[in-house]
């Protein structure tokens, strides 16, 4: 758990006839992080060629993505099921799959065409409304319909009994039929349509014996009626469109099982051919290679043995041995082996970078430090409980992607840390005195109105800042120790001694801390004695010159042409000066940076004091309904804002102050081709 998992490099040779079964076995095992033999340049690559694939991986992937886009129409996304077995893999007919998907697309397009026709009608109705709006007086428009470039107006009388039938027929094209008045058995109508449909309208007028009237009544109130009729029609048409959209979605829903099944098979085929894309061949054999966690070596061997009936040849290499053999560094994939419960913290680490092979996996340490920092910055039992519940609800019921799910789990931890901090500082939703503090009451340091208990172990903000400085020094020293372990494990001896984060660096930092401590505890008037000061600061500072010298010769080892000139020592001197400068500014800012832990804690308390005071002021120093509301909103605001700030600042301290001391990133993640993975 503390270090990356030990890996083994496998080179395997099997007979060509076992390729299919072996591919399935390797997929089923899901253990091998494949590497093309050609990539390692072991010399084998000249004698082998790539295994030709029966199906194009790109085409498989494109069809699979097409299915995903179909399924996204109904808001679902396919995924490999937990119980999937490699036996479900069957040959895929890409032509047939594409034809099937074209057919589904064609059916949806049919609906879209109908939706489009309805849309045209809606737009025309909207056009009628706009044109009608242009008329100041509708009556004038009807009296002289040449005033409108696009509309045809008719005012006339119709047999009232035939009104519904007439309206229904007029509905076949964009028009407005507005009944104005009943006159005996007749009804007077205003009909508005597009000029282009005039012929069709006249045919319907004749059919229903609509008598056009010359005398146009006052139509000043009719505009509103036209708008209402148009709105009603548009609403009906929009509903029809929605129904067509629902029908198009139903097409996908109806095909869902088949689409899911096809998707799964395509995905399995993609993985199958991805594995084979790493295979190389000779006339009768197939070769492949890759990395496996050392602990799973036996499982791979067993699998290969079972499929090939013992007709195989395997070579296992340690990374170090392999590097020696090919005289080059190799990129070893990194597998982090943390308990599942630490997955949110592993996410924080890998978000920064993948640790280098053989170095420390900081996940468990980050988990502890992150939570301590969060608890110190955001210590409140009540608010911590809110974060905890949010995290639990999000993790249990939220439909999030993996990253967001991990953040929800992180919230659970942060909530717990905040609750612990709350008990330490005796804070419950920012109210002092509800819970007795186990350590000290933060509010009494910030709020002069809250008396400081005589027994409080922390008596001032300065003391709190000093505590966070001690905490920071502890974190930095821990980072340095972890770095020394990393350097020992990766056998970088000179770096271990001379680097800024090596032993000399640690010595100088410890000397600096002691000197500052001595100075502060002597009223800022006295430094340690001469010899002690030299031993604490002078000597390690001088020894730091080893770093530019070490770097120069390391560079020369790789580039022998690099000359050692009379000016080279001068270069060492200036680099040493710069190194010292960087050392002091870097370590000083790193250490002081931890004061933000106290700063955020103070800000948190101050904000809660402010909200509580405002809430009480509303009710004349009594709790009122409005006051409680303000207090609740204030709490939510603090949970959101301060929670986010504390989360980000904790992360920042880990990334920049802690990781910069030891973390060796830029590793490659172990990524085996498996049924559930890549």
């Amino acid at each position, binding site marked *: 758990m503390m270090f990356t998992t030990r890996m083994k490099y496998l080179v395997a040779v099997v007979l060509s006839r076992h390729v299919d079964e072996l591919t399935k076995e390797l997929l089923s095992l899901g253990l091998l992080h494949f590497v093309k033999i050609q990539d390692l340049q072991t010399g084998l690559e000249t004698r082998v060629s790539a295994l030709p694939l029966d199906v194009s991986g790109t085409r498989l992937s494109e069809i699979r993505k097409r299915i995903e886009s179909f399924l996204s129409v109904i808001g679902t996304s396919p995924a490999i099921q937990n119980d999937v077995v490699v036996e479900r893999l069957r040959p895929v007919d890409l032509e047939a799959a594409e034809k099937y998907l074209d057919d589904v*697309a064609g059916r949806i397009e049919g609906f879209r065409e109908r939706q489009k026709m309805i849309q045209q009608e809606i737009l025309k109705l909207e056009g009628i409304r706009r044109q009608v709006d242009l008329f100041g007086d509708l009556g004038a428009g009807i009296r002289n319909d040449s005033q409108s470039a696009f509309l045809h107006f008719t005012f006339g009388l119709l047999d009232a009994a035939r009104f519904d039938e007439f309206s229904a027929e007029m509905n076949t094209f964009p028009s407005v039929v507005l009944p104005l008045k009943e006159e005996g058995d007749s009804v007077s109508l205003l009909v508005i349509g597009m000029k282009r449909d005039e012929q069709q309208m006249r045919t319907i007028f004749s059919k229903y014996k609509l008598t056009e009237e010359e005398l146009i009544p006052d139509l000043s109130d009719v505009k509103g009626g036209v708008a209402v009729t148009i709105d009603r029609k548009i609403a009906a048409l929009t509903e029809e469109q929605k129904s067509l959209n629902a029908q198009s979605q139903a097409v996908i829903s109806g095909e869902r099982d088949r689409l899911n099944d096809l998707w799964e098979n395509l995905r399995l085929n993609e993985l199958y051919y991805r594995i084979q894309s790493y295979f190389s061949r000779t006339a009768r054999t197939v070769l492949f290679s890759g990395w496996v966690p050392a602990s799973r070596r036996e499982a791979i061997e067993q699998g290969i043995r079972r499929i090939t009936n013992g007709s195989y040849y395997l070579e296992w290499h340690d990374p170090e041995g392999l590097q020696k053999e090919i005289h080059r560094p190799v990129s070893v994939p990194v597998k982090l082996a943390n308990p599942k419960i630490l997955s949110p913290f592993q996410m924080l680490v890998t978000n920064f970078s993948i640790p280098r092979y053989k170095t420390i996996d900081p996940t468990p340490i980050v988990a502890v430090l992150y939570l301590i920092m969060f608890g110190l910055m955001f210590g409140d039992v009540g608010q911590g409980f809110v974060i905890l519940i949010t995290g639990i609800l999000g993790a249990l019921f939220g439909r999030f992607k993996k990253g967001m799910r991990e953040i929800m789990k992180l919230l659970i931890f942060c909530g717990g840390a905040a609750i612990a901090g709350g008990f330490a500082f005796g804070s419950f939703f920012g109210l002092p005195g509800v819970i007795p503090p186990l350590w000290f009451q933060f509010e009494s340091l910030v709020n002069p109105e809250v008396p400081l208990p005589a027994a409080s172990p922390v008596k001032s903000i300065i003391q709190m800042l000093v505590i966070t400085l001690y905490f920071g020094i502890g974190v930095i020293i821990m980072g340095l120790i972890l770095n020394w372990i990393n350097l020992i494990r990766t056998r970088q001896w000179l770096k271990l001694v001379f680097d800024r984060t090596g032993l000399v660096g640690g010595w100088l930092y410890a000397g600096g801390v002691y000197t500052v401590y001595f100075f502060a505890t002597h009223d800022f008037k006295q430094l340690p004695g001469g010899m002690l000061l030299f031993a604490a600061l002078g000597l390690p500072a001088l020894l730091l010159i080893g770093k530019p010298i070490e770097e120069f010769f390391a560079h020369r080892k790789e580039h022998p042409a690099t000359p050692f000139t009379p000016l080279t020592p001068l270069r060492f001197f200036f680099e040493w000066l710069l190194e010292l400068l960087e050392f002091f500014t870097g370590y000083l800012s790193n250490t002081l940076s931890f004061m933000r832990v106290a700063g955020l804690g103070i800000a948190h308390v101050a904000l809660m004091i402010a909200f509580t005071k405002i809430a009480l002021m509303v009710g004349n120093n009594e709790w009122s309904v409005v006051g409680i509301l303000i207090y609740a909103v204030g709490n939510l605001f603090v949970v959101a804002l301060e929670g986010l700030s504390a989360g980000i600042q904790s992360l920042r301290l880990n990334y920049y102050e802690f990781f910069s001391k030891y973390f060796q990133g830029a590793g490659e993640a172990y990524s085996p081709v498996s049924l559930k993975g890549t």
Partner: protein
Amino acid sequence: MASAVRKYSFINAKLRTRLSKLLTEEFFDTLIRSHSIIDAMQILKSTSYASLEAIYSQTGDMKGAELELFKEEIAVFGDVERYVTGETRGFCRALTTFYEVENLKRAVRLWFDRAVRGRDIEDSLPYLYRTVIHYDLRLDQLVAARDGAGVLEALAGTPYADVFEEQLPEIQRMNSLFAFEMALDRYYYAELLGAVDRLDARDARIARRLIGVEIDLLNINWVIRFKSFYNLSLSDAQRYAVPFGFEIDREAIARAYDKDRVGEVFESLMKKHEGVVAMFKEQAADTNARLVLIERILEYALMQEVRKLLIGYPFSIGIILAYFILKKTELRKMMTILNAKLYGVRPEEIKSRL
């Protein structure tokens, strides 16, 4: 210096974030390779263009989606305008005049088709952008106008009335809107450069350069067409061209007019861009293909200028201009691809049109 940092630090950070969200070439490639318009729309679902998918799946109306894109484009620049103040805001406002001018061109084209050419325009009417950008153009009244006087009445109270009135005899003489549209372009650039004059010295220099290059490219494109396809006289070509170019002036146009063929005209105008001319010379193709190539090369030249802006001093008007051009390019590309998908154009052909 401090005031430039204060003025542009926020918008610079905001636009750089937005620039990082512009769609990548790989994304466009995926869109081009999608099997149908339905697939393409689904791909857009996970981008800032999700509203297009929503409109399309509700209405099946591609033109409606296109109008939505136009609206979004205007909204994007309105949004930028909100985050700047003073003369910079005035400049952003002038930039959005481009959309008003384009929208007016569309409306006047519809009017011309209906009132002069007697065509049925009812299917196109709904797709006019009717929201006021700067002036109330009364577009419905405009497209319904009986004649030029009616158009003038619809445009009354806007600066476009003067432009139209001035060009009306030309429209009637040529039976074409060409002169009016060119006049609108000249109006837009005059407005824009007027706003540039009010910027401080550094901003004005940067803006003049990029706008000048844009005008040059516009003029190069037109001059090639004036000379090779419309057979316009030199004086007409000089009259129609947009002034205020960066390198291409009346003399450059006159020199280019001495040449006979498309290629020679182009080479004459682009002679300061040796690499570009060399690229052009390498391509032997028919005239139309050469024109497409010229357009690509001009776009490439403009993108080079944009790239220079993005790596230059960050606290200047340059970032706004760069974003404006890149976003416009993205939207144009998007529309081309979606329309091509709608009509089933093959991926290779789409690529060649982009």
